[in-house]
């Protein structure tokens, strides 16, 4: 046999191709992104608004505390209320590996997220990894070549799971790794979805700090101090707007974020495309403000999608091609779209919030505090 490995592999794997179906999946994913350009636009717009913002950003850990780290994604992400500091616990763990040190600098639990800021430091480095605050991940198609961390098998850009008192939780939302101000230092923010988790006043956190070759999990203890500042508001009655009903499912006020989950219950007879449009308008244009529209809060995250009476079905086209689409299961029943929002908190809590995207499409949420959870 006298041929290149490539020729040989191509012949033997001739049946492994990028099928039309797969190309179609890519086109569909791209179309979906084209339909939702709002996020990048919104982020830029909100970043500009920040210049006029008046909320407090804390100076923590020499400028690279948890909240300031979040602010490297978008500056206003650092905006939290002063009592957020009571949620932050510092210097939680230190581990020394062959080439790098790992420090869990700060972590904050607010019942919705566990946010962690940790530093990985190459002990042999003689200079910062990059200009302090520069992302080591975003805008790069490959990770920054952090050789010392890679040699130790450290997961330095993100973490794929955590355990809180033995309960598995997943990462959710944004994350970032930036060059720190010290030599050889990368600082990473990661957050985990802890909603609904039942935890005692003191609990353990386990993070998979070292990966596949030599697994190593890092453990530390936290408590729930500061949670008295986190509380739900009483959801207002549902409100009908045109061909759908706005139903606030949950609104939780935290010094770090205001979290809102709402359902848009869309009348029977409205097709799926319009249902997406109705929800899409909320996602792209809704603002949270005082009842009179003043003091708009700043967007921090959002998500949406159908929660009932819909299915994702395959449609067979000609020539063996196929596509997928959302379809309403029972056209005689309403379709519920869920929209989830996170906003940075207001400087002063209002008597009522106004959440909406037009003169008609809005709902008032009285600031009726329920007991802290």
């Amino acid at each position: 046999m006298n041929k290149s490995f490539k020729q040989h592999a191509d012949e033997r794997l001739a049946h492994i191709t990028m099928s039309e179906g797969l190309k179609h999946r890519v086109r569909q994913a791209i179309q979906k992104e084209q339909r939702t350009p709002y996020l990048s636009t919104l982020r830029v717009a909100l970043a500009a608004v920040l210049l006029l913002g008046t909320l407090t950003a804390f100076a923590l850990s020499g400028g690279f505390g948890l909240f300031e780290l979040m602010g490297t994604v978008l500056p206003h992400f650092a905006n939290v209320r002063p009592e957020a500091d009571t949620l932050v616990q510092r210097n939680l763990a230190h581990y020394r590996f062959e080439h790098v040190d790992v420090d869990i600098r700060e972590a904050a639990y607010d019942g919705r997220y566990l946010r962690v800021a940790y530093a990985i430091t190459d002990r042999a480095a003689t200079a910062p990894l990059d200009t302090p605050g520069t992302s080591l991940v975003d805008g790069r198609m490959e990770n920054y070549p952090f050789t010392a961390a890679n040699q130790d098998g450290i997961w330095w850009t993100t973490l794929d799971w955590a355990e809180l008192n033995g309960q598995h939780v997943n990462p959710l939302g944004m994350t970032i790794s930036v060059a720190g101000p010290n030599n050889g230092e990368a600082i990473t923010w990661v957050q985990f979805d802890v909603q609904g988790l039942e935890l005692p006043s003191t609990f353990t956190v386990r993070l998979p700090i070292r990966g596949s070759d030599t697994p190593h999990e890092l453990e530390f203890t936290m408590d729930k101090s500061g949670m008295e500042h986190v509380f739900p508001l009483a959801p207002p009655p549902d409100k009908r707007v045109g061909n759908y009903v706005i139903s606030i499912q949950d609104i939780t006020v935290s010094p770090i974020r205001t979290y809102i989950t709402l359902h848009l219950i869309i009348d029977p007879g409205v097709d799926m495309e319009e249902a997406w449009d109705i929800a899409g308008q909320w996602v792209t244009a809704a603002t949270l403000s005082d009842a009179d529209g003043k003091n708009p809060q700043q967007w921090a995250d959002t998500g949406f999608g159908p929660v009932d009476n819909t299915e994702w079905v395959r449609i067979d086209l000609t020539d063996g091609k196929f596509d997928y689409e959302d379809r309403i299961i029972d056209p005689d029943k309403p379709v519920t779209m869920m929209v989830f929002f996170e906003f940075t908190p207001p400087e002063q809590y209002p008597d009522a919030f106004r959440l909406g995207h037009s003169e008609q499409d809005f709902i008032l949420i009285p600031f009726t505090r329920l007991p802290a959870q």
Partner: protein
Amino acid sequence: MQATPQPQPEAPAALDTGVHTPAETLPQTIERMMNEHGDGLMKLCFMMLGEHALAEDAVQETFLKAYRAYPKFRHEASEYTWLTRIAVNTCKSLRARAWFRLEDRRVNPEDIPGLHAREQWPDDTVLNAVMALKPKYRDPILLHYYQGLPVKEIARALGIAVSTVSVRMLRARNMLKDALKEWYFDE
């Protein structure tokens, strides 16, 4: 496979078209790249992941990332090399996710049954020998002998030092030499 010094292989000429035409819209560019590079990337991802469905996920994600990042693509490398880098990182990420899905995370991902399931895998001595290598040895071999990347590009794609790539390739070739005593390749 001969253990003789290896010349730098060239990237398959048909795969490298360089800069997109200014008249192309971004979706058209992605369409063209899928037509030109899709099959090759699919084979690469299949060999890296050993599972058809995972390879499809990796290729889909690769082109989606390419779509997002193309406006920032400065053509310092060819489209082919650039896409390969994205695909390699995507495959590495998928491997990690497969490992993290396991109940017992102390299991080495290289030992996960099913991650390298041989569905649609040909009964082929050479490919089986390559697939039997651990990923850290297999990846440089695939990137060099299948994708045609020079060592420096492999180091960049895998996020490891050039010297590490060289050492792993040398060890991999020695392992393959033992496994394929009855066979030989020019490259």
